[in-house]
């Protein structure tokens, strides 16, 4: 069972930990959408993926379909995958060292 935890440290910010794959991508999408709804559209939602150890194409799909409303913070681990899928071209992707 793939495990993921979601944290909302403040308005307009979402921190995700764990792994995201096909089995929990819907959950991941739901978490982002909830956070977006809560923020009431005042600004882009920052999705912090620095603590995500694994992200597959299902998860990237979730990010790409919401790219206009989010900005992404990632660790170097996920950066290649996100770059391959073209996410940096549609939204801000910031990479922070561990």
């Amino acid at each position: 069972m793939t495990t993921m935890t979601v944290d909302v440290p403040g308005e307009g910010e979402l921190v995700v930990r764990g792994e995201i794959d096909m089995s929990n991508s819907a959950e991941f999408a739901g978490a982002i959408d909830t956070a977006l709804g809560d923020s009431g559209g005042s600004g882009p939602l920052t999705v912090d993926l620095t603590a995500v150890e694994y992200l597959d194409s299902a998860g990237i799909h979730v990010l790409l379909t919401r790219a206009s409303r989010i900005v992404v913070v990632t660790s170097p681990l996920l950066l290649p995958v996100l770059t391959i899928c073209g996410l940096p071209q549609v939204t801000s992707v910031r990479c922070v060292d561990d």
Partner: protein
Amino acid sequence: VTSEGVTPTGSGWIPAFAHDEVGRDLSEVDWSTTPLGAPATWPQSLQTAVSILVSSRFSMWMAWGPQLTFFCNAAYRRDTLGRKYPWALGRPAREVWAEIWPDIGPRIESVLATGTATWDEALLLFLERSGYSEESYHTFSYSPLRDETGRVVGMLCVVSEETDRVIGERRMGTLRDLGSDPSIARTEREWLDFAGDRLARNRRDLPFTMTYLFQSDGRAQLAGATGFGRLPADEVGHAWPAVAAARGEAVLTDLDPAMPAGDWAEGPQQALVVPLLQQGAPPFGFFVTGLNRYRPLDQGYRGFVELAAGHVAAGIAGARSYQAQLRRAEELAELDRAKTTFFSNVSHEFRTPLSLIVGPVQSLLDRPGVPDEGMRDELELIKRNGLRLGKLVNTLLDFSRIEAGRMQAQFEPADLAAATTELTSVFRSAIEKAGLAFVVDCPPLPRPVALDRSLWEKVVLNLLSNALKFTFDGGITVRLRADGEYAELGVADTGIGIAAEELPRLFERFHRIENARSRSNEGSGIGLALVLELVNLHGGTVTADSTLGHGTTLTVRVPFAPEGTRITAQSGPTALSATADPFLQEALRWVPAAPEPVGYTAAAGVASRVLVVDDNADMRDYLTRLLATAGHRVSTAADGEAALDAVRADEPDLVISDVMMPRLDGLHFVAALRADARTASIPVILLSARAGQEASIEGLDSGADDYLVKPFSAAELVARVRANIELAQVRTHHARWRAALVDSLQEAFFIADEDGTIVEINAAFARILGFGPDGLPYAPPHPWWPDARTDPDGHQAMAEAFASADHQTRARFTLPVTHRDGHRVWVAVALSLVSNPDTGDKVIVGTFRDITAEHYAIQRESALSTLSTRLSEADSLTEALAAALDELRSRWPATAVRAVVFDRHGRPSLMSTGPHQDWGDLTDQQRAALTAVREQPLLAPIVDPRAGGPVVCLEHPEGLLALSLEVSAHRPFTTEDQTLLALLAAHLGQGLHRVHQIHQQRETALALQRAILGPAHLPDGFVVRYEPATRPLQVGGDWYDAVTLADGRIGIVVGDCVGRGLEAATIMGQLRSACRALLLKDPRPDEVLTGLDRFADGLPGAACTTVFCGVFDPASRCLTYASAGHPPGILVDPDGSVHLLDGANSLPLAVQAGTRHSPARVTIAARATLLLYTDGLVERRGTSIDAGIRHVADIVRDSRHISIHELAARVMTHRTPPDGYVDDVAMLVYRHPAPLQVAFPADANQLAPVRHALRHWLSECALPTELIQDVLVAAGEACANAIEHGHRHRPDGTIRLVAEAATDRLTVQVTDTGEWKEPEPSLHRGRGLALMRAVMHHVTVTPGPDGTVVTMDTRITP
């Protein structure tokens, strides 16, 4: 002519003049002085006429106006006008052609007056155009020219000059006349008269001729003349240049005008003198001709005179040669007459003494009580030869009479059929004795024939005698028929026939056909000539019809007597005997009454052997008696050919031979004897009837030792025979000694000339090969050579052996030969090339030693040993049988060898050489033969034609084996072959049983070894190999083991028991079990070995076993190991560095009590390769074990990038010795980590655990974090795909993931069991595939009916 380049000049030019030279010249004429006036004033009619004239290329002239002013064109100028141009232009025609005006003037007048055209053909006109009056011929037409008013004011002449044609034809006619029929002129005079007559017909070219002939004194004598009324006096000849003519030169000479003029008004001014040439000799004389003064002496004229003279000369030559021939013929006729007279006289002279010989002899014979048989024989001999001589004399006399016209024939009407039948009956006995059929078909004829009976007898007897003489097989047919007014008698034989070119001369007197095969060479060639003469006397004819080799038919036709004639001639036997008897006696002597004895007459003591060669039986008998009486042993031959055969079969001491004989005459016979080295030294005495020094020189030249002329005295002959034999014996003493020596040899001995023809052999040769001296010489290929068809190799070997003797002084071979009776003999051949010191000729001297028995013994030994070897090499029954069949096939050699095994239930299974065949592929006959042979006794070969050769039956481990050899029909299956096949079959049977036993043992052993060798299931990451020793294929004592221990560590063992076979395998099994038990109890390698040492100590045969034992902890990658005398393990790191695990070595098991085994440790790097093995892998004869280990390590290092399965295979392959492993090999390969293998249900919830397992395995591989993440993403996408798409319709399906790491490469394979369509557009799964491809080095998706395989790999960079 074109106008180009010609400029019109002068004032008188008008367009009608055209632009050529004539036109220009016309324009330059001062026309104002002519009646025509200036051209510009000319009427159009004139201009038109001039224009036509000038532009025509046909030769023309015209005249116009009152003075007939002359115009002409270029063609006329060229052909006719000559020097008169351009003077003639514009002149009156009468002036221009003044010299012929009398001829043409009237014609022109006529045209002008009547307006009608004239026509003249080849009119002779004397033109003055070349500076002399010239004979010329013209064909022309004058036609009127009219002015504008229609008045005739001029004429146009169209002309062609024909001088050349007319004169050419005239001269040709003369030459033709001269050559027309020279045969009428038989003498020189006749010819000269004939030629003169012909020459006189051409008085234009030859106004006069004179023919002079040189006399024997060199003076020229006038022999003929033409053109003169009367032959001129001889003095005329002296004026000619005779000397130059005698040298063969032609001379032109000036003449007195007084010479005859021929057809001309004036005589010739010159004469041409040409020689009368003859081939190869000075000229006969010379020919003078006066030359036509109206023609130039051009090449044509000169050539004509020379040809005419040539004809005259040829005629003279012909006449002189005819005269010479005539004289010669007359001389010959005179000679012939003289000869006939001489013959006639001599023949008469012969008759008297002959009568006085034959008469008294007959009375002696008739006298009762003639004492002894021998004397009677001799008297008969005298009588017979007297009669023969008489017959010949009578024939010659007949000729003489006929020649002299004195033959007095007495014609009486006779019954030709009766007369002929009677005559044939005389000859019947002789013909039938000769073994020929004799058919007489003479039915009565309707009318009698006017016949001289005595002459007819000679006709018929000669014809029959002739037929018998030349006929050896078949028969003779006499047929009489009426054919109109003639009776026709045909005598047909089936004899040798006569060549077409000889037929015309058949009836010529004394003509004999050379070298014709006949019963006797005697005869004068006169018989058929006489027949012709005699038949001619009867008013009849004789014709011959013959085909060479098939026979001859002579047909006589004689006229019947006039209608109503009655037969008056009486017939009776008494009437014919006198003539017929000599014919019959002669014929009987050609046909031996009884076969003459072959071989030499008996004589007491060591007599000399003499061969008498004569075609006359009487002479043979006489000489035989004479020489036998003198103490010789005599043999006879009837001609040279027979004599040669006799000499070669049995060499005589001396030969006496006649010279004239049929087939091969005496001179050629002697030459043949001398040409053959074996017979060259036999003394020969020639006998001949031809006397004279030349004849005897010819005889001695041919090589005869002596020469006797018939008649000879008996005493002289006997003396010469003795002298020659003694001389030869002295000469040949050495040769005889040599011959005796050679004959005493036990080996076949022969001498051959350089080309291999065998000319001499000894007695042993005939014994060993069956070919005796009677067949000599034997030209290669010798009859005992192996047949080129059935044994091409043997034939070739023999040919090469002989060929090699040419350039090798000594050569030895063992070869098969064929005895005359057909059986095969093996001989040891020794050949030497030696030179004859006298002649320098090279000869081959050789011996054959019969080694047949030895050969077959050796062959049997060799066949058995080869078969044994091949059987021993076989590992299975099939292999053994195949090898045996192959061996049998090449041994015989056979075209095919088949073996059928009938199992216990009688089911056949076939094996054959060549292309694969099943039992069903065989013919019914082959199957029948192979089935039937089971009824035969075992191992008893029989030849069954249905199988195409021998078949034999033997025991096979699985039933009965029927064996058949298909051999060449030409190759006999001999007793030796039968023995050999039985032997081989027995051997094969034993061999098959042995192979079968060994095979069974090995099968058992292998099954056992597999059972005890190693675990059925190995821990992951291990690959093992076991290879038994190849030859003999045996189980061995090597083993390997790998076992997962309770704490997750893995125990690894490789061991090697000493020895092979079942015993070693048994010990190995016990040690292996003990080792595993010890490991499970206490996983410390040193302790395991110590325990095993103790165990082995109590196990017989276990001593010296080597063992490598290790314990590996996958978590720490630490390997603890100990080795009991075992070769070190090989460890290769990912970077290629090699480590040998030699840190804990001690003695092998049970070698020394209390051996201490201590452990060593090594950390195995991730993706390193560990290889453990037994010494069979590294030990090679001739190289050190270290070299073997290094080689194996190199292979492992070079293969560290490939999977360990492939690596293991590669090591085994590369280390396989050429003939297979001599020792068994156990090998164990491990690479850490072991490949990851996961199988999971197609459920998204499985993704996380699979990912965790993969992450763990990847970390064991010691890979960089980025690479781990890439592999995790790629593998995750592949698994997600498999779940989402591959198993959309089959949620219960299973997905497998396999990951394997080599040194520099990592491979992941995901396999599902569903359909996997890709890529599906606009879905994120499509992105998943792109992701896989982006992060992995290589991705392939292979859809299949049972699922899809995704294979991905990536490089590992350190």
